[in-house]
């Protein structure tokens, strides 16, 4: 494969000199930065991260207990790369793309070390259907053929760094990923598999500005703070505020075609939950199990810290690969703070000069490099695809001024601020509507006008205004009580409460409410607006806020959330609302 680059270099054997946790030093070893090496008699996998005279410093992806100075180290001469090809979907990998299911077979229920396992099955045969013909000229990244992987069609491509060429033979039939399916006239041979170094972004023809929202089915996200396909978002929040639930909701319901979910330094039981749940959940669009479009990467908090550092790169490389096929991919990284901590841990073992709060000085650069790999693109082969990146951030003490949150906010376009206060009162999703923002609102306006309703943008701004107004009024209420407010403002408080409780609150565990499409979101907001209009009119006509609060139909409105075929019920409620207000006004 082309990426090997240093293929011609002889493999060199070196000797271990020092071991201090996950960082070891070798001597007498020819190495380049980020070469993958095998450490010790057990051949633990590691990566060169520093070269200092004759000393080669290596981070090891596995536990180093029991390794002694004097043991051998060998250099593979390759960069840390992932295997890309049919078989990625439905897989669950650790941080360095070892399939966890294979590891269970090889070493039982606990993760021992020194076991290598390829990312893809090299035995399984896939049915390959060519789309190029003999004699056809092909460019790098060209689609050679297709494999029906799950319900997703896997497009087999010429590697992006291959030179252009002319097809001499192209095969059709059942092949393993290693068998040659395409031969070019200059003699180059290609199997379905390709390897790509994880730290290098895959090239694209052009990066475009995102214009289509990633529909997530979550009202506060789609309705108030949307993310675009190919966009970036951050979810920072203290523990217990619902980062993981939000991430999982996005993984389940966002209308991306492929989902890559990275559990980076998080809880083991959470990954189990995803693993158990996803195969049973259906994609609202295709009706197929969600697992069929998902790749999971699980490097839990107690798995080796160096592999945690790599997991984020492994994930984004896989995401880019599917993007190059022309798919919309969304990538969730939970949590980027654990990734940053892994960098910090390794940096401190290297005795590097620390930056803010002990994080390495290159933290900001690494974060921006990572988020910059998101985007709406034209792939080399001309297909349009996107990678949307949604990173969770776990700020210590919930303090957003810490380095990881701050450096992330400088890059991402959407900020969903989780709020412990909201989660304490079980307002879920606990996203603070005053602090959050989306910079995609303007670019997405056209889409909403066309696809949802020309009224949508107006009604959205109206809701935001009400919520903003409520925040101001609440400050007064805190001091003097709500009865002291002018009547029209008492109505505003009531309307804001309805927006919060009916529209913003959403139950992730309710079979219906867990996903809410744009039409329903619009209809719900419209009904609240209808109530508001009627209430303000009634108030002007002399109806008191207390009387307005007696309107029964407004209490029926929350039930709409839990009804799948809600339209008849909603129409009934709206009609009743109209009647009730008429009665109130005629009495006034």
């Amino acid at each position: 494969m082309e990426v090997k680059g240093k293929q011609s270099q002889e493999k060199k054997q070196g000797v271990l000199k020092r071991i201090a946790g996950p960082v070891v030093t070798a001597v007498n070893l020819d190495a380049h930065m980020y070469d993958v090496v095998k450490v010790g008699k057990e051949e633990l996998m590691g990566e060169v991260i520093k070269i200092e005279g004759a000393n080669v410093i290596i981070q090891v992806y596995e536990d180093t207990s029991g390794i002694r100075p004097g043991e051998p180290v060998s250099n593979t001469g390759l960069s840390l790369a992932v295997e890309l090809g049919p078989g990625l979907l439905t897989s669950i990998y650790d941080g360095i793309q070892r399939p966890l299911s294979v590891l269970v077979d090889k070493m039982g229920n606990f993760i021992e070390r020194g076991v290598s396992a390829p990312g893809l099955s090299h035995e399984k045969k896939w049915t390959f259907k060519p789309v190029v013909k003999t004699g056809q000229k092909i460019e790098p990244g060209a689609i050679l053929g297709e494999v029906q992987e799950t319900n997703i069609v896997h497009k087999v491509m010429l590697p992006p760094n291959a030179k252009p060429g002319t097809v001499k033979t192209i095969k059709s039939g059942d092949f393993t990923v290693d068998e040659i399916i395409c031969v070019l006239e200059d003699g180059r041979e290609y199997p379905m598999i390709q390897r790509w170094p994880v730290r290098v972004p895959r090239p694209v023809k052009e990066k475009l500005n995102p214009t289509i929202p990633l529909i997530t089915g979550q009202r506060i996200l789609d309705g108030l703070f949307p993310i675009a396909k190919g966009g970036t978002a951050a979810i920072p929040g203290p523990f217990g505020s619902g980062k993981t639930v939000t991430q999982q909701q996005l993984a389940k319901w966002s209308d991306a075609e492929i989902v890559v979910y990275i559990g980076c330094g998080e809880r083991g039981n959470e990954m189990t939950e995803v693993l158990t749940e996803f195969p049973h959940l259906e994609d609202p669009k295709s009706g197929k199990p969600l697992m069929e479009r998902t790749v999971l990467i699980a490097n839990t908090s107690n798995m080796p810290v160096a592999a945690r550092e790599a997991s984020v790169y492994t994930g984004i490389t896989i995401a880019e690969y599917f993007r190059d096929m022309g798919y919309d991919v969304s990538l969730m990284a939970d949590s980027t703070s654990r990734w940053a901590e892994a960098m910090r841990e390794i940096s401190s073992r290297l005795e590097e000069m620390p930056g803010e709060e002990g994080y390495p000085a290159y933290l900001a650069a690494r974060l921006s490099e990572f988020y910059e790999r998101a985007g709406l693109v034209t792939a080399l082969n001309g297909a349009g695809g996107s990678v949307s990146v949604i990173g969770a951030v776990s700020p210590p003490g919930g303090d957003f001024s810490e380095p990881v949150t701050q450096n992330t906010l400088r890059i991402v376009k959407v900020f969903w601020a989780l709020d412990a206060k909201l989660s304490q009162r079980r307002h879920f999703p606990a996203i603070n509507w005053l602090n959050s923002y989306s910079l995609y609102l303007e670019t997405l306006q056209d889409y909403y006008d066309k696809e949802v309703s020309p009224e949508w943008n107006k009604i959205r701004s109206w809701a935001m205004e009400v919520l903003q107004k409520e925040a101001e009024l609440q400050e007064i209420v805190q001091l003097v009580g709500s009865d002291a407010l002018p009547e029209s403002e008492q109505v505003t408080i009531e309307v804001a409460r309805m927006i919060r409780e009916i529209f913003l609150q959403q139950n992730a565990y309710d079979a219906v409410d867990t996903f809410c499409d744009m039409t329903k979101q619009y209809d719900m907001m419209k009904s609240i607006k209808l109530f508001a209009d009627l209430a303000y009119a009634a108030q002007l006509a002399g109806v008191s806020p207390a009387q307005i609060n007696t309107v029964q139909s407004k209490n029926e409105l929350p039930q709409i959330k839990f009804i799948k075929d809600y339209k008849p019920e909603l129409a009934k409620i709206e009609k009743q609302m109209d009647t009730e207000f008429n009665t109130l006004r005629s009495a006034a």
Partner: protein
Amino acid sequence: MKEYRTISKIAGPLVFVEKTEPVAYGELVNIVLYDGTIKRGQVLDTSDELVVVQIFETTTGIGRDSGVRFTGETIKMPVGKDMLGRILSGGGKPIDGGPEIIPEKRLDITGAAINPYARGMPADFIQTGISTIDGTNTLVRGQKLPIFSGAGLPHNNVALQIARQAKVPGSTESFAVVFAAMGITKEEANYFMADFERTGALEHAVVFLNLADDPAVERIITPRLALTTAEYLAFELGMHVLVILTDMTNYCEALRQIGAAREEVPGRRGYPGYMYTDLACIYERAGMIKGQKGSVTQIPILTMPGDDITHPIPDLTGYITEGQIVVNRDLHRKGIYPPINVLPSLSRLMNLGIGPGKTREDHKKVSDQMYAGYAEGNDLRGLVAIVGKDALSERDRLLLEFADLFENRFVRQGYDEDRTIEDTLTIGWELLSTLPVEQLTRIDRDLINKYHPKLKSGAKKE
């Protein structure tokens, strides 16, 4: 075994040894003093020239003349069936006057990570008999749910009550308890032991005691020994094990002490930058394994310095564990036991353990509604202090009363009061029925009609 007399430097708990044969990282080391006493330690850093050894006990008596023996193996814990009922030191030696443990196996105390693919999904509701846990922050088998407390609060009683009352309804298997004390006082330890003896819990318990005057560094291995034992009981013998670790704050202090001795770059408040990973390697050793019978459920206890939940110890813990139970000083001052504040408390696995067939169909929604009501009522207390009760609307007045009722009826219960989940939910509905029905927006109409004491049709006579 070769003995080196090449110690070059001793600093805090660290001993630096020069010119050795190749020594393995993590190897167990014995240091022989002039009088023959042996101190144990572990290799932290190894190279041709220099080996750094961390001593688990005090370094008193170690000098440049002491002998150093490298054992060639990492620290192993002898485990066996007859450990139940035994009291061991924080270093794993019997201190109850009984015989040595007859080892059936010797296990590495670091413990490998459970492959996430092999994990079983926790789903069995554990009834602790405490309403604030069962009703609103449900514990399930295989969960790690810490108690965040403060100095002088009755967290030990809460932990003991859980250990005593915990059961899975409909299952006859009881829990084995592994209790690890780190740096607690002898008095506290006696209190635990007396309660274990009073209730007969000691028979199916393994106790590890590292007391306040025991070496701080030993605290680093105490929880690892306890969890290795727990994993053996759970995954080799098929038992359901409840692990109580107290006090994790002392553990973290010991970690900081070693970090400082090693002259590491400190993270927040002087705690080492790797504390998250280190704590994770303890807390993550809870769970179940697919196709196996046993389980490890963890209840670590920690005291928040200055009651500050953003302090690095509770903060990092909260990011790893599956929720937290927060013991609150104000409630304690009001004389409410158990003084659990449900607002900052959380159980992340609650939804897996409740609902139809496990507890009851209305459980989740009753809990949410109570949370919302209590949170709002609690906020109003601040307002009342300024404007007085009279300025409140009817709705707010009811919420305020709800908050008081919630604390007095739902939170408050006896130290030996063991409420079933039915009892807990009944109290919940009783409280909710003081609010207007239309305010119960988080519960579907059907459930309201079925369970609301004032509405349920054909209500049984109590």
